[in-house]
């Protein structure tokens, strides 16, 4: 694909590096000539010096043949201008806009831009997920009688290696037994060896207390 990236800071540059590595053609529009020089020094001639919100600069960058336009400067008003000119003037197929101030997410969405990336929001979500993963998601529902067994509850995260696998294929610790899989909009089921695990499943299991971390790893580990 041909991808035009406006803004050659850490974000634009990092994205360009990865996209070039997997075989895409890139043009970075960067207004600071020193930064553009440094990008070209690292990645070959991919950077163009100019104001990426100016139509003639966008033209020079070949925005009319771009498959994707990424607006990722550090200024939201510039990213909005890039996104809107790309859509109106160049009928860009896909525009991705970076949002610096998370409060502007609402503004971009109100203006019809749904492909928005807010670093702050992403980091906040990631932190929340980590907090949940570490503390809440392996909730020990109860200790069973006076044994060393506990009843646990685990939510399967979207990136877990377990997603899409059968119960039989999971690397469960010895003695652990999955007793119930609760899936949104479906009846709870008692899983068999062939039951496939989905992202977001709530898995209730019995395990020996000492194997609880291994059970958690089996259900949430990213492979």
């Amino acid at each position: 694909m041909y991808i035009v990236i406006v803004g050659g800071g850490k974000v634009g540059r990092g994205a360009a590096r990865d996209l070039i590595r997997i075989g895409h053609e890139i043009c970075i529009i960067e207004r600071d000539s020193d930064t553009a020089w440094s990008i070209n020094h690292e990645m070959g001639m991919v950077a163009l010096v100019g104001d990426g919100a100016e139509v003639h600069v966008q033209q020079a960058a070949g925005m009319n043949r771009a498959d994707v336009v990424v607006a990722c400067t550090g200024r939201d008003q510039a990213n909005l201008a890039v996104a809107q000119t790309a859509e109106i003037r160049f009928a860009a197929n896909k525009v991705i806009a970076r949002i610096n101030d998370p409060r502007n997410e609402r503004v971009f969405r109100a203006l019809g831009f749904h492909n928005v990336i807010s670093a702050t929001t992403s980091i906040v979500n990631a932190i929340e997920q980590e907090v949940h993963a570490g503390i809440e998601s392996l909730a020990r529902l109860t200790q069973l009688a006076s044994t060393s067994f506990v009843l646990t509850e685990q939510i399967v995260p979207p990136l877990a290696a377990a997603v899409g696998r059968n119960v039989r294929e999971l690397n469960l610790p010895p003695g652990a037994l999955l007793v119930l899989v609760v899936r949104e909009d479906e009846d709870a089921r008692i899983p068999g060896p062939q039951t496939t695990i989905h992202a977001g499943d709530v898995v209730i299991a019995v395990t020996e207390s000492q194997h609880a971390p291994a059970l958690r790893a089996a259900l949430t580990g990213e492979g």
Partner: protein
Amino acid sequence: MSNPRRAGKRVVIMGCGRLGSTLAGELDQEGHHVTVIDIDPAAFNWLDDDFRGDTVIGQGEDADIQRAAGVPDAQVFLALANGDNRNAMAVQVAKHIHGAPRVVARIYDPERAEVYRQLGINVVNPTTILDRMVREVAFAPDRANQTG
């Protein structure tokens, strides 16, 4: 502010430079209620001493600053700061977030001005206006020769 003689419109102006401050003073004199937003408090020195409107310090494209400046209750929002991108974003926030019935943006770049017109925004483009005026003055028939 509650003076009954002042039955004018509520106008919010972003950008207190030469244009913004001049317009603010005139609209104030005409009986409108004017609020001016600028990021630089020193910019308010451009306003006349007898300016009766309000001033708000902050980024005029920020939805929260616009709310503080009364944009949700304003009839007119004018974006007259120096940056095209900033003005364009500000009028769209005023229109689509706060529901301002009439917004106008100053956009210097004629190409971008056209893009925003297509998005339904009222745009004033000083470059094309001045281009026309300069041509009219520079190439007008010489009056001295005409009358002579």
